[in-house]
């Protein structure tokens, strides 16, 4: 049971933004611009960073849903997602993505963990300032979303089919504030 009275049966962050749409609006706008807006990183790559950070924070709802969205967006290369979640350094993603995921992992611990050599490694493999910026902000924002979802003990579905469906919707429609059925 969630710590506060949210609509029953509604999973994760959806139940929280329906409880408080005033704060839900900028949260969904942030997700939309960061994960779907113009960026040198593909939507699949950005969803992968989100899933990777959520995995490190052990937030099952965010990890499962953003991994599903990333698989959907990677299409034929969908196996990349589970490889990264299992063992990032030995996965099949590019060296640039490994360097960016390494930065995301540091941000997940704390901002100051990111060292000049982490940034230099990303540059060496071709990451530009904008890609580094977006990686840091995606990782930082999921350090928020994960705490929001877990801190209020929102409902986490356990069946994979629910997340597959969610991932498809996220890949197709992006992030629009859900409306309460009440």
């Amino acid at each position, binding site marked *: 049971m969630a710590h506060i009275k949210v609509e029953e049966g509604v999973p994760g962050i959806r139940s929280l933004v329906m409880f408080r749409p005033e*704060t839900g609006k900028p949260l969904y706008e942030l997700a939309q611009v960061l994960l779907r807006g113009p960026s040198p990183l593909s939507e699949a790559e950005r969803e992968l960073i989100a899933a990777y950070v959520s995995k490190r924070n052990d937030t099952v709802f965010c990890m499962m849903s953003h991994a599903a969205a990333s698989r959907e967006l990677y299409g034929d290369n969908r196996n990349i997602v589970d490889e990264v979640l299992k063992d990032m350094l030995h996965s099949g993603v590019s060296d640039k993505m490994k360097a960016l995921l390494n930065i995301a992992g540091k941000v997940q611990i704390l901002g100051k963990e*990111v060292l000049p050599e982490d940034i230099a490694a990303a540059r060496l493999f071709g990451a530009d300032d904008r890609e580094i910026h977006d990686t840091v902000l995606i990782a930082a924002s999921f350090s928020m979303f994960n*705490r929001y979802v877990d801190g209020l003990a929102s409902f986490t579905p356990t069946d994979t089919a629910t997340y597959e469906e969610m991932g498809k919707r996220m890949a197709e429609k992006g992030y629009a504030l859900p409306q309460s059925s009440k």
Partner: protein
Amino acid sequence: MKKWENEWPKKDTHYHNHQNKKMAHINLGNELPGIRGPMAFRPETAKPLNELAEILLRDDNNTLSRGERELIATYVSYLNNCFFCQNAHGGIAQYYLQCDIQFIDGVKKDFNSMAVTNKMKALLSVAASVQKGGKFVTTEQIEAAKNAGATDIEIHDTVLIAAAFCMFNRYVDGLGTSAPTDRQFYIGRGKQRAEEGYLHFDLYK
């Protein structure tokens, strides 16, 4: 060893300006302090970030005062060891609460020994758990907050403020932004930010 691990550079590649002052990890195209640097670099993401700050910290349709909400933001930024955010929001809290910097520092060090309400003590304890990770918040902490008179919305906002500052702090420090070291600077800015708010202000002023 893989290429990626092999070629890991070791030298300091921080940008330096003409005065050889340490710059952020990336070239932000400006020398603004703290979060204002990346916000000016990427206005598209700055917009929802500032909208979130405005509704969460400053909207008057809230039973937590602006000062109480800024105090939660300050405390979480302190726990995340983010110098810029804890001083910027400490300065704003100080303005709203009409207190001195000793009070703000006392809350950071041990809020239980300070003159804040029992409800605020319970909420600050929830915020401290959120800072560690969402799962650290216990049912007992929530019960204690409710028993001290906290409403569901107040608990929601406390959790979201704490979570949001786990983002803002990481954004500011993860990009290695610079921050003025004189704490007095932030007290002067506190009044300005309190009056202007987070939505309609000039990043360059």
